[in-house]
């Protein structure tokens, strides 16, 4: 079997190579050849005991997503019930440690800020169908979207504005582009379901914040088929990990959480079968805290204070794509001479101004900002008041050098300026997309948009919109570099190195004892002068005497 695979592959490669060994071949052709080979291997590699294309239940011209789901749960009787309990479904989560009421539906961030009143748009990334307002039925089994995670064809796409549905009719996409998407071929998709993949998870998680690479910095479509230098584990031609290799799922609840991350573990490897309910999505779960062998063992002495990611992810947005670094909502709403909204592109080719959204900056290969982190994240929620004269940390990472639970983590700090209630000093829910009369992206009126958003969630609004400077921290943990590309010792072990300014770390070589150095060198120097003088005197006197 694997022989055939390999032969197939080599044939494809041979074909590709013969096409254009001397660099004549277009990259697209290379890609196409590789993709074809990939497709072939993916199919042949599936070790499933069921070939869904042979099921008569799926040999149906499905009219809608929920129809597909009904077919799925006809056999997978418990699947939808399992999903109903997950964060992926509920977008609602209470952190048992802080008792804060979190989840996508509740928190406010400094990207698109808030979900309520914008459901049709936002729920393109919900694992359900039809969450278009606050009356969505969370108990409906057929509303669970199975194929968004289990598609293997790459042809399934939920579009913003359709409340979690793919398009069932031909649709102009992107809007006003003159390009058209044919109706989604649900039958083919249903007949080819399989395991989740980087592509399916990435359909949402690579595009957080409204587009490819925007939000996390360490997650973007460059990870769909990454080379080894981009990620050692996901390396498509090497280990080829899917997301679920680390983010294992138990009854559809996926391990790993940004609301309750694991910042430090004192335990060793997580043994398969162990009853320990540990997070599987950590480096330590596979590598333990002393993974460096032989002459590298000195590195193990760093693991008490530094997260593995500090050294092994030298930069984020390493896949050549630009990630968003700042977002200033306050400048939105400018129009051109014809009164039309505008978009301006920067020299990096990314939109730097959009009337709907304001000003942006982007960057790639970004050196992270480092902070102590013990896994506890404190959020500023819509009911919390704050001091508007200070930069508001929408989420702050708790941790310190001496709480015994923290390690230094690399983070992307995303900086913004966004709408808030100027009188009550609170964050606000803003109507952006759905409601024709108030949506900011249609009316460019901040006050109207906030008024509607706050009313939608039943919160008080003073009527005055201000703009508050905000920061959000995102732990950097993907795009793990091969060991040769890990952060070099010297990048921290020097004056003003990467970790300069992080308190509670002693870093040899970082100019730690300036006073003693001056004193020590001065005394050594004086001693040298002293003995030289003494020697000279000896020499002269000896000559005279002699």
């Amino acid at each position, binding site marked *: 079997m694997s022989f055939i695979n390999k032969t197939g592959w080599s044939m494809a490669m041979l074909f590709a190579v013969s096409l254009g060994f001397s660099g004549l071949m277009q990259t697209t052709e290379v890609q196409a050849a590789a993709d074809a080979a990939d497709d072939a291997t993916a199919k042949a590699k599936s070790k499933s005991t069921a070939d869904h294309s042979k099921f008569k239940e799926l040999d149906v011209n499905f009219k809608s997503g929920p129809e597909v789901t009904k077919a799925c749960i006809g056999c997978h009787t418990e699947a939808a019930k399992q999903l109903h309990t997950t964060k992926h479904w509920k977008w609602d989560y209470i952190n048992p440690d802080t008792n804060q009421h979190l989840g996508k539906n509740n928190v406010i961030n400094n990207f698109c800020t808030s979900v309520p009143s914008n459901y049709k748009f936002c729920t393109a990334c919900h694992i359900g169908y039809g969450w278009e307002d606050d009356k969505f039925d969370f108990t409906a089994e057929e509303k669970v979207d199975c194929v968004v995670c289990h598609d293997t064809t790459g042809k399934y796409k939920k579009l913003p504005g359709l409340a979690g549905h793919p398009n069932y009719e031909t649709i102009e996409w992107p809007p006003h582009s003159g390009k058209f998407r044919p109706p989604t071929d649900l039958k083919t998709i249903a007949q080819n379901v399989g395991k989740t993949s980087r592509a399916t998870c990435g359909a949402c998680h690579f595009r957080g914040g409204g587009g490819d690479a925007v939000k996390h910095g360490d997650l973007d479509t460059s990870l769909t088929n990454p080379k080894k230098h981009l990620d050692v584990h996901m390396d498509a031609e090497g280990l080829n990990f899917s997301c679920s290799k680390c983010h294992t799922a138990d009854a559809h609840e996926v391990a790993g959480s940004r609301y309750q991350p694991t910042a430090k573990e004192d335990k060793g490897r997580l043994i398969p079968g162990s009853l320990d309910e540990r997070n599987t999505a950590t480096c330590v779960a596979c590598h333990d805290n*002393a993974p460096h062998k032989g*002459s590298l063992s*000195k590195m*193990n*002495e760093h693991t*008490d204070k530094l997260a593995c990611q500090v050294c092994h992810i030298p930069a984020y947005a390493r896949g050549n794509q630009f990630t968003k670094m700042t977002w200033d909502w306050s400048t939105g709403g400018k129009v051109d001479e014809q009164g039309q909204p505008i978009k301006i592109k920067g020299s990096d080719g990314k939109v730097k101004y959009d009337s709907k959204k304001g000003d942006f900056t982007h960057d790639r290969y970004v050196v992270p900002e480092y902070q102590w982190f013990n896994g506890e994240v404190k959020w500023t929620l819509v009911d919390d008041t704050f001091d508007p004269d200070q930069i508001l940390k929408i989420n702050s990472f708790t941790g310190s050098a001496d709480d015994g639970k923290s390690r230094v983590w690399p983070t992307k700090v995303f900086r913004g300026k966004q709408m808030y209630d100027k009188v009550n000093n609170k964050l606000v829910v803003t109507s952006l997309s759905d409601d024709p009369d108030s949506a900011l992206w249609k009316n460019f009126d901040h006050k109207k948009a906030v008024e509607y958003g706050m009313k939608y969630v039943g919160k008080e609004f003073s009527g005055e919109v201000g703009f508050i400077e905000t920061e959000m921290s995102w732990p950097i943990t993907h795009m793990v570099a091969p060991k040769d590309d890990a952060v*070099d*010792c*010297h990048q921290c*072990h*020097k*004056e003003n190195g990467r970790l300069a300014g992080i308190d509670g770390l*002693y870093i*040899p*070589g*970082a*100019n*730690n*004892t300036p006073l*003693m*150095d001056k*004193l*020590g*060198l001065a*005394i*050594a120097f004086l*001693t*040298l002068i002293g*003995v030289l003088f*003494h*020697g000279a*005197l*000896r020499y002269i*006197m*000896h000559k005279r*005497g*002699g």
Partner: protein
Amino acid sequence: MAAERIYIFKRFERFWHWSQALLIMFMMLTGFEVHGLYSIFGFKAASELHTIAAWTLVSLWVFAIFWHVTTGEWRQYIPTLEKVDAMMKFYLTGIFTDAPHPFKQTTVRKHNPLQRLAYLFVLLLINPLIWTTGWFYLFYSSWEDWGIAGFLSLEWVAFFHVAAAFMMLIFFIAHIYLATAGHTVTSHIKAMITGWEEVED
């Protein structure tokens, strides 16, 4: 001026002296690089070399201590204040006028009183300080297991290690110079190489 030759430094002593000298120079070179004073090997290499040299030095010391104890040579370092003033006077004045050296080396009294004090300082202060702090530095990962993590901080361990390293540097400079202050400029140095010292009779 007639000179007599006496056998002062035994083979092991000479080996110990020079290998220790080399190691200590190397440790200063690599150690101060780790400390960030300059860059020669690069931090990583400096740190690795320093660690290798540390283990070598530690083994050398184990042998040396064993040798000193079994041969009784450790007595050479017992301090005495006798003639200290004469030595001071010699280094401050007599040495310039080619006055006779106030101390007479013999096989059983190799070090002059000032040397004794200096070496004692090295043996009782610098070495123990460098050794213990260096040791704790090496075994940083084990502090937790040894139950001492709460009492030690790398910052202070390193502070004393570096302080001792500076003391070593200062001692080293003075030591090299004083090595030229024997009967003749080179007699001490020759003695440490051949074992034989020229002394005035």
